Protein backbone atom coordinates (compact mmCIF):
# COMPACT_ATOMS: atom_id res chain seq x y z
CA UNK A 1 0.00 0.00 0.00
CA UNK A 2 2.83 2.31 0.91
CA UNK A 3 4.60 1.30 -2.25
CA UNK A 4 1.49 2.30 -4.23
CA UNK A 5 1.37 5.70 -2.54
CA UNK A 6 4.99 6.44 -3.30
CA UNK A 7 4.58 5.17 -6.82
CA UNK A 8 1.58 7.42 -7.48
CA UNK A 9 3.24 10.44 -5.93
CA UNK A 10 6.16 9.95 -8.29
CA UNK A 11 4.33 9.12 -11.50
CA UNK A 12 1.14 11.12 -11.06
CA UNK A 13 1.65 13.32 -14.16
CA UNK A 14 2.19 10.30 -16.36
CA UNK A 15 -0.96 8.66 -15.02
CA UNK A 16 -2.92 11.79 -15.87
CA UNK A 17 -1.53 11.79 -19.38
CA UNK A 18 -2.53 8.16 -19.90
CA UNK A 19 -5.98 8.82 -18.47
CA UNK A 20 -6.53 11.67 -20.94
CA UNK A 21 -5.34 9.43 -23.76
CA UNK A 22 -7.78 6.77 -22.60
CA UNK A 23 -10.61 9.25 -22.37
CA UNK A 24 -10.01 10.59 -25.86
CA UNK A 25 -9.86 7.09 -27.31
CA UNK A 26 -13.19 6.24 -25.73
CA UNK A 27 -14.84 9.52 -26.71
CA UNK A 28 -13.71 9.26 -30.33
CA UNK A 29 -15.16 5.78 -30.58
CA UNK A 30 -18.38 6.86 -28.85
CA UNK A 31 -18.95 9.83 -31.11
CA UNK A 32 -18.47 7.63 -34.16
CA UNK A 33 -20.63 4.85 -32.73
CA UNK A 34 -23.39 7.33 -31.89
CA UNK A 35 -23.48 8.63 -35.44
CA UNK A 36 -23.40 5.19 -37.00
CA UNK A 37 -25.66 3.56 -34.41
CA UNK A 38 -28.35 6.25 -34.59
CA UNK A 39 -28.21 6.13 -38.37
CA UNK A 40 -28.70 2.35 -38.36
CA UNK A 41 -31.50 2.72 -35.82
CA UNK A 42 -33.26 5.32 -37.94
CA UNK A 43 -33.00 3.14 -41.03
CA UNK A 44 -34.40 0.00 -39.43
CA UNK A 45 -36.87 1.01 -36.70
CA UNK A 46 -39.97 0.99 -38.87
CA UNK A 47 -39.54 -2.67 -39.74
CA UNK A 48 -39.61 -5.27 -37.00
CA UNK A 49 -37.56 -7.70 -39.11
CA UNK A 50 -34.83 -5.18 -39.94
CA UNK A 51 -34.74 -4.06 -36.30
CA UNK A 52 -34.09 -7.56 -35.01
CA UNK A 53 -31.54 -8.10 -37.74
CA UNK A 54 -29.62 -4.96 -36.75
CA UNK A 55 -29.73 -5.85 -33.07
CA UNK A 56 -28.62 -9.42 -33.75
CA UNK A 57 -25.72 -8.29 -35.90
CA UNK A 58 -24.42 -5.70 -33.49
CA UNK A 59 -24.86 -8.21 -30.67
CA UNK A 60 -22.73 -10.68 -32.59
CA UNK A 61 -19.87 -8.17 -32.64
CA UNK A 62 -19.94 -8.14 -28.86
CA UNK A 63 -19.39 -11.89 -28.70
CA UNK A 64 -16.01 -11.60 -30.47
CA UNK A 65 -13.30 -11.64 -27.80
CA UNK A 66 -11.69 -8.24 -27.67
CA UNK A 67 -8.17 -9.54 -28.06
CA UNK A 68 -9.23 -11.37 -31.22
CA UNK A 69 -10.94 -8.31 -32.70
CA UNK A 70 -7.98 -6.06 -31.93
CA UNK A 71 -5.76 -8.70 -33.51
CA UNK A 72 -7.89 -8.73 -36.66
CA UNK A 73 -7.78 -4.94 -36.82
CA UNK A 74 -3.98 -4.99 -36.65
CA UNK A 75 -3.93 -7.35 -39.61
CA UNK A 76 -6.34 -5.17 -41.62
CA UNK A 77 -5.48 -1.65 -40.53
CA UNK A 78 -2.16 -1.92 -38.73
CA UNK A 79 -1.00 -1.02 -35.26
CA UNK A 80 -2.17 2.13 -33.51
CA UNK A 81 -5.10 4.36 -32.64
CA UNK A 82 -7.01 3.83 -35.82
CA UNK A 83 -7.44 0.08 -35.28
CA UNK A 84 -8.42 0.63 -31.67
CA UNK A 85 -11.04 3.23 -32.53
CA UNK A 86 -12.61 1.02 -35.19
CA UNK A 87 -12.83 -1.96 -32.85
CA UNK A 88 -14.20 0.10 -29.96
CA UNK A 89 -16.78 1.72 -32.24
CA UNK A 90 -17.96 -1.72 -33.30
CA UNK A 91 -18.32 -2.80 -29.68
CA UNK A 92 -20.28 0.32 -28.77
CA UNK A 93 -22.90 -0.18 -31.48
CA UNK A 94 -25.29 -2.64 -29.82
CA UNK A 95 -26.60 -0.49 -26.95
CA UNK A 96 -26.87 2.54 -29.20
CA UNK A 97 -28.67 0.80 -32.06
CA UNK A 98 -30.98 -1.02 -29.70
CA UNK A 99 -31.91 2.07 -27.72
CA UNK A 100 -32.36 4.18 -30.85
CA UNK A 101 -34.83 1.61 -32.16
CA UNK A 102 -36.63 1.39 -28.80
CA UNK A 103 -36.73 5.16 -28.45
CA UNK A 104 -38.05 5.80 -31.94
CA UNK A 105 -40.62 3.02 -31.73
CA UNK A 106 -41.77 4.43 -28.41
CA UNK A 107 -42.86 7.77 -29.85
CA UNK A 108 -46.62 8.18 -29.35
CA UNK A 109 -48.38 7.25 -32.62
CA UNK A 110 -50.74 10.21 -32.10
CA UNK A 111 -47.75 12.55 -32.12
CA UNK A 112 -46.59 11.01 -35.37
CA UNK A 113 -50.01 11.21 -36.93
CA UNK A 114 -50.51 14.84 -36.01
CA UNK A 115 -47.02 15.75 -37.24
CA UNK A 116 -47.72 14.06 -40.54
CA UNK A 117 -51.18 15.57 -40.74
CA UNK A 118 -49.72 19.04 -40.35
CA UNK A 119 -47.57 18.51 -43.41
CA UNK A 120 -44.15 18.15 -41.79
CA UNK A 121 -41.83 16.41 -44.25
CA UNK A 122 -40.34 13.03 -43.35
CA UNK A 123 -37.02 14.74 -42.64
CA UNK A 124 -38.55 17.42 -40.43
CA UNK A 125 -40.51 14.80 -38.52
CA UNK A 126 -37.36 12.80 -37.86
CA UNK A 127 -35.20 15.74 -36.85
CA UNK A 128 -37.73 17.87 -35.01
CA UNK A 129 -40.07 15.31 -33.50
CA UNK A 130 -38.92 11.69 -33.44
CA UNK A 131 -35.23 12.03 -32.58
CA UNK A 132 -35.71 14.69 -29.87
CA UNK A 133 -38.41 12.52 -28.28
CA UNK A 134 -36.27 9.39 -28.48
CA UNK A 135 -33.19 11.25 -27.28
CA UNK A 136 -33.32 10.38 -23.55
CA UNK A 137 -33.49 6.68 -24.44
CA UNK A 138 -30.72 7.02 -27.04
CA UNK A 139 -28.55 8.83 -24.53
CA UNK A 140 -28.99 5.99 -22.07
CA UNK A 141 -27.74 3.63 -24.78
CA UNK A 142 -24.74 5.86 -25.38
CA UNK A 143 -23.99 5.86 -21.68
CA UNK A 144 -24.15 2.07 -21.44
CA UNK A 145 -21.96 1.79 -24.54
CA UNK A 146 -19.41 4.11 -22.96
CA UNK A 147 -19.16 2.07 -19.79
CA UNK A 148 -18.75 -1.01 -21.93
CA UNK A 149 -15.82 0.30 -23.96
CA UNK A 150 -14.02 2.15 -21.19
CA UNK A 151 -12.80 -1.21 -19.91
CA UNK A 152 -12.31 -2.75 -23.35
CA UNK A 153 -10.18 0.26 -24.28
CA UNK A 154 -7.60 -0.83 -21.69
CA UNK A 155 -6.85 -3.78 -23.95
CA UNK A 156 -6.25 -1.42 -26.88
CA UNK A 157 -2.86 -0.65 -25.34
CA UNK A 158 -1.88 -4.07 -26.57
CA UNK A 159 -2.02 -2.83 -30.15
CA UNK A 160 -0.24 0.41 -29.40
CA UNK A 161 -3.21 2.70 -28.91
CA UNK A 162 -1.93 3.93 -25.53
CA UNK A 163 -4.18 4.73 -22.61
CA UNK A 164 -4.28 3.29 -19.12
CA UNK A 165 -3.90 -0.22 -20.51
CA UNK A 166 -0.22 0.61 -20.96
CA UNK A 167 0.42 0.38 -17.23
CA UNK A 168 -1.64 -2.75 -16.83
CA UNK A 169 0.28 -4.54 -19.58
CA UNK A 170 3.58 -3.12 -18.21
CA UNK A 171 2.75 -4.50 -14.80
CA UNK A 172 1.93 -7.89 -16.29
CA UNK A 173 5.22 -7.91 -18.19
CA UNK A 174 7.19 -7.10 -15.03
CA UNK A 175 5.65 -9.74 -12.85
CA UNK A 176 7.75 -10.19 -9.70
CA UNK A 177 9.23 -6.71 -9.66
CA UNK A 178 8.20 -4.12 -7.02
CA UNK A 179 6.44 -1.88 -9.52
CA UNK A 180 4.28 -4.65 -11.01
CA UNK A 181 1.46 -4.37 -8.49
CA UNK A 182 1.40 -0.54 -8.30
CA UNK A 183 1.34 -0.37 -12.10
CA UNK A 184 -1.57 -2.77 -12.46
CA UNK A 185 -3.54 -1.30 -9.57
CA UNK A 186 -3.15 2.34 -10.55
CA UNK A 187 -3.90 1.50 -14.19
CA UNK A 188 -7.08 -0.25 -13.12
CA UNK A 189 -8.11 2.49 -10.71
CA UNK A 190 -7.48 4.98 -13.49
CA UNK A 191 -9.94 3.11 -15.74
CA UNK A 192 -12.54 3.13 -12.99
CA UNK A 193 -11.97 6.85 -12.46
CA UNK A 194 -12.38 7.58 -16.17
CA UNK A 195 -15.64 5.61 -16.12
CA UNK A 196 -16.89 7.66 -13.16
CA UNK A 197 -15.99 10.93 -14.81
CA UNK A 198 -17.77 9.93 -18.00
CA UNK A 199 -20.85 8.83 -16.08
CA UNK A 200 -21.05 12.18 -14.37
CA UNK A 201 -20.58 13.84 -17.72
CA UNK A 202 -23.61 11.96 -19.12
CA UNK A 203 -25.78 12.98 -16.21
CA UNK A 204 -25.00 16.59 -17.00
CA UNK A 205 -25.50 16.08 -20.74
CA UNK A 206 -28.83 14.39 -20.02
CA UNK A 207 -29.99 17.31 -17.90
CA UNK A 208 -28.95 19.89 -20.43
CA UNK A 209 -30.23 18.19 -23.57
CA UNK A 210 -33.60 16.88 -22.34
CA UNK A 211 -36.36 19.47 -22.87
CA UNK A 212 -38.38 20.32 -19.78
CA UNK A 213 -41.54 18.92 -21.34
CA UNK A 214 -40.24 15.34 -21.35
CA UNK A 215 -38.21 15.34 -18.15
CA UNK A 216 -39.85 13.36 -15.38
Amino acid at each position, binding site marked *: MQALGEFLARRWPQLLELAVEHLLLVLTAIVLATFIGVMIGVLVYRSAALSSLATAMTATILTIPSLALFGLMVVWVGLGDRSAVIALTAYALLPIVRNTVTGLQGVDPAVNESAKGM*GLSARARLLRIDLPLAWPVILTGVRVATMLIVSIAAIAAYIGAGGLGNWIFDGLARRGSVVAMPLIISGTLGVVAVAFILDGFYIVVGRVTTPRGIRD
Partner: protein
Amino acid sequence: MEHMIRLDELTKRFPGQLAVDSVSMDIPEGEIVVFVGPSGCGKTTTLKMINRLIEPTSGRIFLEDEDVTRINADRLRRRIGYVIQQIGLFPHMTIASNIATVPRTLGWDKQRIAERVDELLELVGMDPEAYRDRYPKELSGGQNQRVGVARALAADPAVMLMDEPFGAVDPITRERLQNEFLRLQDEVNKTICFVTHDVDEAIKMGDRIAIFGDDHGIQQFDTPEMILSHPANEFVEDFLGSGAALKRLHLRRVREVALTAWPAAGVAEDRDTLREKLEDSEQSFLLLLDEQRQPVRWVSRRDLERGEGRMADRGLPVAAIIEPHATLHDALDEMITSNVGCAVVVDREGAYQGVVDIDPVMTAVNTLRAELRERLAVGSWHAVPTETVEEGTS
Protein backbone atom coordinates in the same frame (compact mmCIF):
# COMPACT_ATOMS: atom_id res chain seq x y z
CA MET B 1 -65.48 28.23 -56.48
CA GLU B 2 -68.54 26.12 -56.16
CA HIS B 3 -67.56 23.94 -53.25
CA MET B 4 -64.64 24.03 -50.87
CA ILE B 5 -64.27 20.26 -50.89
CA ARG B 6 -65.55 17.77 -53.42
CA LEU B 7 -65.17 14.04 -53.04
CA ASP B 8 -65.71 12.12 -56.23
CA GLU B 9 -66.43 8.41 -55.82
CA LEU B 10 -63.73 7.92 -53.21
CA THR B 11 -63.04 4.29 -52.46
CA LYS B 12 -60.55 2.71 -50.11
CA ARG B 13 -59.85 -0.96 -50.06
CA PHE B 14 -57.36 -2.27 -47.51
CA PRO B 15 -56.01 -5.77 -48.15
CA GLY B 16 -59.06 -7.94 -47.58
CA GLN B 17 -61.15 -5.10 -46.17
CA LEU B 18 -63.35 -2.58 -47.89
CA ALA B 19 -63.21 0.58 -45.77
CA VAL B 20 -64.94 3.23 -47.88
CA ASP B 21 -67.19 2.46 -50.81
CA SER B 22 -67.54 5.10 -53.50
CA VAL B 23 -68.28 8.15 -51.39
CA SER B 24 -69.19 11.35 -53.21
CA MET B 25 -69.85 14.57 -51.38
CA ASP B 26 -69.88 18.30 -51.99
CA ILE B 27 -68.98 20.43 -49.03
CA PRO B 28 -69.84 24.13 -49.29
CA GLU B 29 -67.47 26.76 -47.99
CA GLY B 30 -67.84 27.72 -44.33
CA GLU B 31 -69.97 24.75 -43.31
CA ILE B 32 -69.45 22.10 -40.69
CA VAL B 33 -70.13 18.70 -42.17
CA VAL B 34 -70.34 15.92 -39.62
CA PHE B 35 -69.54 12.32 -40.54
CA VAL B 36 -71.46 10.04 -38.23
CA GLY B 37 -72.15 6.33 -38.20
CA PRO B 38 -71.46 3.06 -36.42
CA SER B 39 -67.93 1.96 -35.59
CA GLY B 40 -65.91 0.72 -38.54
CA CYS B 41 -68.15 2.28 -41.19
CA GLY B 42 -65.31 4.31 -42.73
CA LYS B 43 -65.59 7.79 -41.20
CA THR B 44 -61.95 8.09 -40.22
CA THR B 45 -60.76 6.58 -43.48
CA THR B 46 -62.83 9.05 -45.50
CA LEU B 47 -61.50 11.94 -43.43
CA LYS B 48 -57.90 10.81 -43.80
CA MET B 49 -58.28 10.50 -47.54
CA ILE B 50 -59.04 14.22 -47.68
CA ASN B 51 -55.56 15.10 -46.39
CA ARG B 52 -54.13 11.94 -47.96
CA LEU B 53 -52.91 10.39 -44.73
CA ILE B 54 -54.61 7.48 -46.44
CA GLU B 55 -54.26 7.32 -50.21
CA PRO B 56 -57.53 6.44 -51.94
CA THR B 57 -57.72 3.25 -53.95
CA SER B 58 -59.80 5.12 -56.51
CA GLY B 59 -61.74 8.33 -56.86
CA ARG B 60 -60.70 11.95 -56.71
CA ILE B 61 -60.47 14.76 -54.17
CA PHE B 62 -60.98 18.41 -55.06
CA LEU B 63 -60.03 21.30 -52.82
CA GLU B 64 -61.18 24.74 -53.96
CA ASP B 65 -61.86 23.23 -57.39
CA GLU B 66 -58.29 21.97 -57.66
CA ASP B 67 -57.74 18.25 -58.11
CA VAL B 68 -55.44 17.46 -55.18
CA THR B 69 -55.53 13.67 -55.52
CA ARG B 70 -51.97 13.55 -56.84
CA ILE B 71 -50.26 16.75 -55.67
CA ASN B 72 -47.47 16.77 -53.07
CA ALA B 73 -49.12 15.45 -49.90
CA ASP B 74 -47.05 17.48 -47.40
CA ARG B 75 -47.85 20.71 -49.15
CA LEU B 76 -51.54 19.76 -49.33
CA ARG B 77 -51.59 19.03 -45.58
CA ARG B 78 -50.21 22.46 -44.72
CA ARG B 79 -53.39 23.90 -46.25
CA ILE B 80 -55.63 21.72 -44.06
CA GLY B 81 -55.93 21.85 -40.28
CA TYR B 82 -56.02 18.45 -38.60
CA VAL B 83 -57.26 17.65 -35.10
CA ILE B 84 -57.46 14.14 -33.68
CA GLN B 85 -58.98 12.74 -30.53
CA GLN B 86 -55.63 11.97 -28.93
CA ILE B 87 -54.53 15.51 -29.87
CA GLY B 88 -50.89 14.51 -30.40
CA LEU B 89 -49.27 17.69 -29.12
CA PHE B 90 -45.48 17.52 -29.23
CA PRO B 91 -44.54 16.91 -25.59
CA HIS B 92 -41.01 18.28 -25.92
CA MET B 93 -42.16 21.63 -27.26
CA THR B 94 -43.81 24.52 -25.48
CA ILE B 95 -47.40 25.42 -26.26
CA ALA B 96 -46.12 28.32 -28.38
CA SER B 97 -43.80 26.08 -30.43
CA ASN B 98 -46.55 23.56 -30.89
CA ILE B 99 -48.86 26.19 -32.31
CA ALA B 100 -46.03 27.66 -34.40
CA THR B 101 -45.23 24.38 -36.17
CA VAL B 102 -46.89 25.00 -39.52
CA PRO B 103 -46.14 28.75 -39.72
CA ARG B 104 -42.48 27.93 -39.08
CA THR B 105 -42.54 25.30 -41.80
CA LEU B 106 -44.03 27.91 -44.12
CA GLY B 107 -41.18 30.28 -43.29
CA TRP B 108 -43.05 33.05 -41.48
CA ASP B 109 -40.82 35.51 -39.64
CA LYS B 110 -40.45 35.35 -35.85
CA GLN B 111 -42.45 38.46 -35.10
CA ARG B 112 -45.42 37.36 -37.16
CA ILE B 113 -45.36 33.88 -35.61
CA ALA B 114 -45.25 35.25 -32.05
CA GLU B 115 -48.20 37.52 -32.75
CA ARG B 116 -50.15 34.71 -34.35
CA VAL B 117 -49.53 32.39 -31.39
CA ASP B 118 -50.89 34.94 -28.92
CA GLU B 119 -53.85 35.70 -31.14
CA LEU B 120 -54.74 32.00 -31.39
CA LEU B 121 -54.37 31.38 -27.67
CA GLU B 122 -56.80 34.20 -27.03
CA LEU B 123 -59.12 32.87 -29.69
CA VAL B 124 -59.38 29.53 -27.86
CA GLY B 125 -59.84 31.30 -24.55
CA MET B 126 -56.39 30.84 -23.02
CA ASP B 127 -54.26 33.62 -21.58
CA PRO B 128 -51.10 33.80 -23.76
CA GLU B 129 -49.07 35.23 -20.89
CA ALA B 130 -49.88 32.24 -18.70
CA TYR B 131 -49.71 29.44 -21.21
CA ARG B 132 -47.39 30.12 -24.12
CA ASP B 133 -44.26 28.88 -22.35
CA ARG B 134 -45.80 25.86 -20.69
CA TYR B 135 -45.46 22.28 -21.85
CA PRO B 136 -48.39 20.04 -22.82
CA LYS B 137 -48.03 17.87 -19.72
CA GLU B 138 -48.60 20.97 -17.61
CA LEU B 139 -52.09 21.47 -19.06
CA SER B 140 -55.42 19.75 -18.46
CA GLY B 141 -57.03 17.54 -21.10
CA GLY B 142 -59.48 20.26 -22.09
CA GLN B 143 -56.73 22.86 -22.36
CA ASN B 144 -54.61 20.54 -24.49
CA GLN B 145 -57.59 20.03 -26.76
CA ARG B 146 -57.92 23.81 -27.17
CA VAL B 147 -54.23 24.03 -28.01
CA GLY B 148 -54.75 21.25 -30.57
CA VAL B 149 -57.42 23.35 -32.24
CA ALA B 150 -55.25 26.48 -32.09
CA ARG B 151 -52.36 24.58 -33.66
CA ALA B 152 -54.56 23.36 -36.49
CA LEU B 153 -55.74 26.92 -37.12
CA ALA B 154 -52.23 28.38 -37.03
CA ALA B 155 -51.63 29.03 -40.70
CA ASP B 156 -55.27 29.96 -41.24
CA PRO B 157 -56.19 26.96 -43.40
CA ALA B 158 -59.51 27.15 -45.20
CA VAL B 159 -60.33 23.59 -44.25
CA MET B 160 -60.21 21.73 -40.94
CA LEU B 161 -60.49 18.00 -40.43
CA MET B 162 -61.44 16.87 -36.95
CA ASP B 163 -61.63 13.22 -35.91
CA GLU B 164 -63.70 12.83 -32.75
CA PRO B 165 -61.95 15.89 -31.31
CA PHE B 166 -64.02 15.92 -28.13
CA GLY B 167 -64.32 12.16 -27.73
CA ALA B 168 -61.79 11.77 -24.94
CA VAL B 169 -62.99 14.37 -22.44
CA ASP B 170 -65.66 14.17 -19.75
CA PRO B 171 -69.23 15.15 -20.74
CA ILE B 172 -69.14 18.54 -19.04
CA THR B 173 -65.86 19.55 -20.66
CA ARG B 174 -67.11 18.17 -23.96
CA GLU B 175 -70.20 20.35 -23.88
CA ARG B 176 -68.09 23.37 -23.04
CA LEU B 177 -65.61 22.61 -25.82
CA GLN B 178 -68.44 22.12 -28.30
CA ASN B 179 -69.95 25.48 -27.42
CA GLU B 180 -66.60 27.23 -27.51
CA PHE B 181 -65.87 25.65 -30.84
CA LEU B 182 -69.15 26.78 -32.35
CA ARG B 183 -68.50 30.31 -31.12
CA LEU B 184 -65.01 30.15 -32.57
CA GLN B 185 -66.38 28.90 -35.88
CA ASP B 186 -68.57 32.01 -36.00
CA GLU B 187 -65.36 34.01 -35.98
CA VAL B 188 -63.15 31.94 -38.26
CA ASN B 189 -65.75 30.52 -40.62
CA LYS B 190 -63.81 27.46 -41.77
CA THR B 191 -64.99 24.57 -43.86
CA ILE B 192 -64.94 21.70 -41.41
CA CYS B 193 -65.25 17.94 -41.63
CA PHE B 194 -66.02 16.60 -38.21
CA VAL B 195 -66.18 12.93 -37.30
CA THR B 196 -68.18 11.66 -34.35
CA HIS B 197 -70.19 8.63 -33.47
CA ASP B 198 -72.47 10.58 -31.19
CA VAL B 199 -75.74 11.49 -32.90
CA ASP B 200 -76.45 14.32 -30.49
CA GLU B 201 -73.06 15.85 -31.18
CA ALA B 202 -73.66 15.50 -34.93
CA ILE B 203 -76.99 17.32 -34.73
CA LYS B 204 -75.58 20.01 -32.52
CA MET B 205 -72.40 20.69 -34.48
CA GLY B 206 -73.40 19.98 -38.05
CA ASP B 207 -74.65 22.37 -40.69
CA ARG B 208 -74.92 19.15 -42.63
CA ILE B 209 -74.64 15.55 -41.59
CA ALA B 210 -73.39 12.57 -43.57
CA ILE B 211 -74.62 9.32 -42.11
CA PHE B 212 -72.38 6.40 -42.99
CA GLY B 213 -73.76 2.88 -43.00
CA ASP B 214 -72.39 -0.57 -42.38
CA ASP B 215 -71.92 -0.86 -46.14
CA HIS B 216 -69.18 1.82 -45.90
CA GLY B 217 -71.20 4.24 -48.00
CA ILE B 218 -73.29 7.31 -47.24
CA GLN B 219 -76.88 6.60 -46.26
CA GLN B 220 -78.01 10.19 -46.09
CA PHE B 221 -76.32 13.56 -46.52
CA ASP B 222 -78.48 16.48 -45.50
CA THR B 223 -79.17 19.16 -42.92
CA PRO B 224 -79.94 18.03 -39.37
CA GLU B 225 -83.54 19.23 -39.74
CA MET B 226 -84.14 17.17 -42.82
CA ILE B 227 -82.43 14.12 -41.42
CA LEU B 228 -84.51 14.30 -38.24
CA SER B 229 -87.77 14.86 -40.05
CA HIS B 230 -87.09 12.73 -43.12
CA PRO B 231 -84.74 9.87 -42.43
CA ALA B 232 -83.86 8.43 -45.83
CA ASN B 233 -84.27 4.82 -44.82
CA GLU B 234 -84.70 2.41 -42.00
CA PHE B 235 -80.99 2.37 -41.23
CA VAL B 236 -80.96 6.13 -40.62
CA GLU B 237 -84.11 5.91 -38.56
CA ASP B 238 -82.61 3.21 -36.38
CA PHE B 239 -79.37 5.09 -36.11
CA LEU B 240 -81.05 8.28 -34.95
CA GLY B 241 -82.78 6.24 -32.32
CA SER B 242 -85.80 7.33 -30.39
CA GLY B 243 -86.50 10.84 -29.24
CA ALA B 244 -86.10 12.64 -32.55
CA ALA B 245 -88.34 15.40 -31.21
CA LEU B 246 -86.06 15.90 -28.25
CA LYS B 247 -83.00 15.87 -30.50
CA ARG B 248 -84.54 18.66 -32.52
CA LEU B 249 -83.91 20.89 -29.54
CA HIS B 250 -80.28 20.80 -30.61
CA LEU B 251 -81.30 22.87 -33.60
CA ARG B 252 -82.10 25.96 -31.56
CA ARG B 253 -79.57 27.92 -29.60
CA VAL B 254 -80.19 29.77 -26.39
CA ARG B 255 -79.25 33.10 -27.97
CA GLU B 256 -82.05 32.62 -30.51
CA VAL B 257 -84.80 32.59 -27.90
CA ALA B 258 -86.07 35.38 -25.72
CA LEU B 259 -84.59 35.15 -22.26
CA THR B 260 -86.91 35.38 -19.32
CA ALA B 261 -86.33 38.43 -17.17
CA TRP B 262 -85.59 37.28 -13.67
CA PRO B 263 -85.13 39.38 -10.57
CA ALA B 264 -81.42 39.73 -9.90
CA ALA B 265 -79.45 41.88 -7.53
CA GLY B 266 -75.95 42.45 -6.32
CA VAL B 267 -74.98 40.35 -3.36
CA ALA B 268 -73.80 43.46 -1.53
CA GLU B 269 -77.10 45.33 -1.71
CA ASP B 270 -78.97 45.79 1.55
CA ARG B 271 -81.66 43.42 2.62
CA ASP B 272 -84.62 45.74 2.11
CA THR B 273 -83.68 46.44 -1.48
CA LEU B 274 -83.33 42.73 -2.11
CA ARG B 275 -86.67 42.01 -0.53
CA GLU B 276 -88.30 44.71 -2.59
CA LYS B 277 -86.85 43.38 -5.82
CA LEU B 278 -88.08 39.91 -5.06
CA GLU B 279 -91.55 41.10 -4.13
CA ASP B 280 -91.89 43.21 -7.24
CA SER B 281 -91.38 40.12 -9.36
CA GLU B 282 -93.59 37.10 -9.73
CA GLN B 283 -90.79 34.72 -8.90
CA SER B 284 -90.08 33.01 -5.65
CA PHE B 285 -86.31 33.18 -5.93
CA LEU B 286 -83.97 36.10 -6.31
CA LEU B 287 -80.68 35.66 -8.16
CA LEU B 288 -77.66 37.17 -6.43
CA LEU B 289 -74.72 38.40 -8.50
CA ASP B 290 -71.20 39.24 -7.41
CA GLU B 291 -69.25 42.38 -8.41
CA GLN B 292 -68.43 40.90 -11.83
CA ARG B 293 -72.14 40.24 -12.31
CA GLN B 294 -71.51 36.52 -12.10
CA PRO B 295 -74.38 34.52 -10.60
CA VAL B 296 -73.63 33.20 -7.12
CA ARG B 297 -76.76 32.24 -5.14
CA TRP B 298 -80.48 31.70 -5.38
CA VAL B 299 -82.25 33.15 -2.35
CA SER B 300 -85.93 32.80 -1.41
CA ARG B 301 -87.86 35.20 0.74
CA ARG B 302 -87.21 33.00 3.73
CA ASP B 303 -83.50 33.09 3.12
CA LEU B 304 -83.68 36.87 3.06
CA GLU B 305 -85.67 37.14 6.25
CA ARG B 306 -83.92 34.58 8.31
CA GLY B 307 -80.39 33.66 8.86
CA GLU B 308 -77.42 35.56 10.09
CA GLY B 309 -74.27 35.27 8.06
CA ARG B 310 -73.30 36.85 4.77
CA MET B 311 -75.85 37.01 2.00
CA ALA B 312 -73.41 35.09 -0.23
CA ASP B 313 -73.72 32.04 2.03
CA ARG B 314 -77.50 31.91 2.10
CA GLY B 315 -79.93 30.08 -0.15
CA LEU B 316 -78.85 27.67 -2.86
CA PRO B 317 -75.81 27.62 -5.14
CA VAL B 318 -76.38 28.38 -8.82
CA ALA B 319 -75.72 25.08 -10.58
CA ALA B 320 -77.24 25.38 -14.04
CA ILE B 321 -75.19 27.93 -15.96
CA ILE B 322 -75.01 28.00 -19.75
CA GLU B 323 -73.65 30.24 -22.50
CA PRO B 324 -75.73 31.72 -25.32
CA HIS B 325 -74.14 29.20 -27.69
CA ALA B 326 -75.61 26.23 -25.89
CA THR B 327 -78.53 24.51 -27.56
CA LEU B 328 -81.97 24.31 -26.05
CA HIS B 329 -81.23 20.64 -25.53
CA ASP B 330 -78.31 21.58 -23.28
CA ALA B 331 -80.53 24.15 -21.56
CA LEU B 332 -83.25 21.59 -20.91
CA ASP B 333 -80.66 19.23 -19.53
CA GLU B 334 -79.38 21.87 -17.14
CA MET B 335 -82.86 22.98 -16.17
CA ILE B 336 -83.76 19.51 -15.03
CA THR B 337 -80.79 19.43 -12.68
CA SER B 338 -81.31 22.97 -11.44
CA ASN B 339 -82.68 23.80 -8.00
CA VAL B 340 -84.97 26.43 -9.38
CA GLY B 341 -86.12 24.85 -12.64
CA CYS B 342 -84.34 27.19 -15.00
CA ALA B 343 -80.89 27.69 -16.47
CA VAL B 344 -78.92 30.91 -15.99
CA VAL B 345 -77.39 32.35 -19.16
CA VAL B 346 -74.03 34.07 -18.87
CA ASP B 347 -71.77 35.67 -21.47
CA ARG B 348 -68.14 34.78 -22.23
CA GLU B 349 -66.90 36.55 -19.13
CA GLY B 350 -69.44 34.73 -16.99
CA ALA B 351 -71.63 37.81 -16.48
CA TYR B 352 -75.37 37.34 -16.04
CA GLN B 353 -77.51 37.76 -19.15
CA GLY B 354 -80.88 36.29 -18.28
CA VAL B 355 -82.59 33.02 -17.64
CA VAL B 356 -84.15 30.28 -19.77
CA ASP B 357 -87.03 28.36 -18.32
CA ILE B 358 -89.26 25.70 -19.80
CA ASP B 359 -91.50 28.06 -21.81
CA PRO B 360 -89.13 28.94 -24.67
CA VAL B 361 -88.24 25.27 -24.90
CA MET B 362 -91.86 24.31 -25.36
CA THR B 363 -92.36 27.14 -27.82
CA ALA B 364 -89.33 25.99 -29.77
CA VAL B 365 -90.62 22.44 -29.97
CA ASN B 366 -93.92 23.72 -31.34
CA THR B 367 -92.47 26.18 -33.84
CA LEU B 368 -89.90 23.68 -35.07
CA ARG B 369 -92.70 21.25 -35.70
CA ALA B 370 -94.79 23.91 -37.40
CA GLU B 371 -91.89 25.08 -39.55
CA LEU B 372 -91.24 21.57 -40.73
CA ARG B 373 -94.88 20.95 -41.50
CA GLU B 374 -95.00 24.14 -43.49
CA ARG B 375 -91.87 23.34 -45.41
CA LEU B 376 -93.13 19.89 -46.21
CA ALA B 377 -96.46 21.30 -47.30
CA VAL B 378 -94.91 23.55 -49.93
CA GLY B 379 -92.33 20.90 -50.74
CA SER B 380 -89.52 23.38 -50.36
CA TRP B 381 -87.18 20.85 -48.89
CA HIS B 382 -86.32 19.93 -52.43
CA ALA B 383 -84.48 23.21 -52.56
CA VAL B 384 -82.18 21.99 -49.86
CA PRO B 385 -79.51 19.93 -51.57
CA THR B 386 -80.06 16.40 -50.47
CA GLU B 387 -78.17 13.40 -51.44
CA THR B 388 -79.60 10.19 -50.25
CA VAL B 389 -79.00 6.61 -51.04
CA GLU B 390 -81.86 4.28 -51.83
CA GLU B 391 -83.28 2.09 -49.13
CA GLY B 392 -80.62 0.98 -46.68
CA THR B 393 -79.15 -2.45 -46.86
CA SER B 394 -79.23 -3.10 -43.16
